[in-house]
């Protein structure tokens, strides 16, 4: 019975190696996958030949084509600590649960007064929260500035703590110092970007990673080699 099918044309394939391989790949991708969190806006950056990778540890400002500013911190510990500080400063109370939930969210672009409501909303409701107006950054109510300064100091602190811990354990720290990244839409008016950059320069931060999409080609040096 068992021999019949192999004789009769339908070849029995030993799939074991294939399954092994497939599961190996699945495991690899599962472990390496870093899921991209749903961004509240689509920002389509211009392209450049820049090859510098965006550091894992970063504080990112996204600016969409209408000039709305979104804020995000990659380090979740620093993100929670920054929220606590902001909550003290703006007298907006957050519950323990909200703070925890906030750390898992992607970048946001709303006034801190609306933030508790935003955090409590479910995923689908959050989309209805649109249009998010962007983090306020005018001179009277510059929340962005506070977010950057609190987020920055907390991110640095988290980095230092991790470093000390690693040193105490006699290991080398893999993480890098936090960097400030700016991601803008290609169609954004530069004037609006300048306002955001001014917020940074007011805080004595002058170095940025401008996020761009990759473009083919390189400098004249590489071109001449070909």
């Amino acid at each position, binding site marked *: 019975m068992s021999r019949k099918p192999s004789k009769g044309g339908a070849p029995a394939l030993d*799939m074991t190696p294939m399954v092994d391989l497939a599961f190996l790949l699945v495991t690899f991708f599962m472990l390496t996958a870093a*899921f991209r969190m749903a961004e509240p806006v689509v920002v389509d950056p*211009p392209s*450049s030949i*820049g090859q510098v990778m*965006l550091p894992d540890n970063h504080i990112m400002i996204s600016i969409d084509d209408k000039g709305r500013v979104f804020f995000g911190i990659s380090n979740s510990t620093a993100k929670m600590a920054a929220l606590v500080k902001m909550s003290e400063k703006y007298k907006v109370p957050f519950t323990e649960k909200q703070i925890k939930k906030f750390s898992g969210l992607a970048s946001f672009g709303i006034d801190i007064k609306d933030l508790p409501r935003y955090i409590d909303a479910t995923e689908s409701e959050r989309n209805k929260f649109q249009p998010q107006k962007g983090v306020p950054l005018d001179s009277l109510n510059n929340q962005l500035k506070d977010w950057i300064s609190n987020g920055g100091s907390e991110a640095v602190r988290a980095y230092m703590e991790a470093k000390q811990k690693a040193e105490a354990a006699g290991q080398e720290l893999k993480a890098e110092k936090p960097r400030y990244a700016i991601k803008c839409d*290609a169609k*954004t*008016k530069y004037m609006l970007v300048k306002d955001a950059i001014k917020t940074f320069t007011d805080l004595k931060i002058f170095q940025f990673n401008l*996020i761009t999409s990759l473009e083919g080609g390189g400098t004249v040096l590489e071109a001449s080699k070909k």
Partner: protein
Amino acid sequence: MSEIADSGGGEKGGKKRAKKQSTRIDMTPMVDLAFLLLTFFVLTSTFSKPKSMELTFPVPPNPLDPPPPAIKNGITFLLTKDDKIFYYEGEYKAKDQPEATVVKELNYSQESLHKYLADKNKRLQDEIKNLEAKLQAKQIPDTTYKRLVRNAKADKSSPTFLIKTDDQATYKNVIDLIDELNINLVGKYVVVDILKSELDLVHEKTGG
């Protein structure tokens, strides 16, 4: 699992064929599942981190400091709407002065901006190419190479490029220009605020 073992144990002898068959599992559904998961993870994983361009902005000048000396060999780009670039070389001179500043137009094409920059920065490019050739020939170690390139880029005699935008220029314009400067190995460039007089010049040209 245990059930199979039980039934196997219960019907010992005579039913060898059935026992043999039970060892062979149909793996097709498992393979299907494995590849489904594989496809999912391949497609969802962010394979490459976003690339970025490092840029340092100038420290705003202290009002108490003496004004900085004018840059003699500066080239100023004025970016404006409709992807237009105007530029002038040297210092800004008002209309009533002799040799008043006249702006010329460029666009982002290979023949226009790229050619202009390649021309302006030829000396530096040649110098860096020279160093690169030396590095390839192993005449200098790469640390020396990096230092020499840095020195060459900081050299006073090569032009400094100033990037100024009006309120109509887009972010893409600025990035494209900086990118083109990087492609042409320009060592010194800076993004600064536009002056009122320069803005007037641009408006005169664009008629807006």
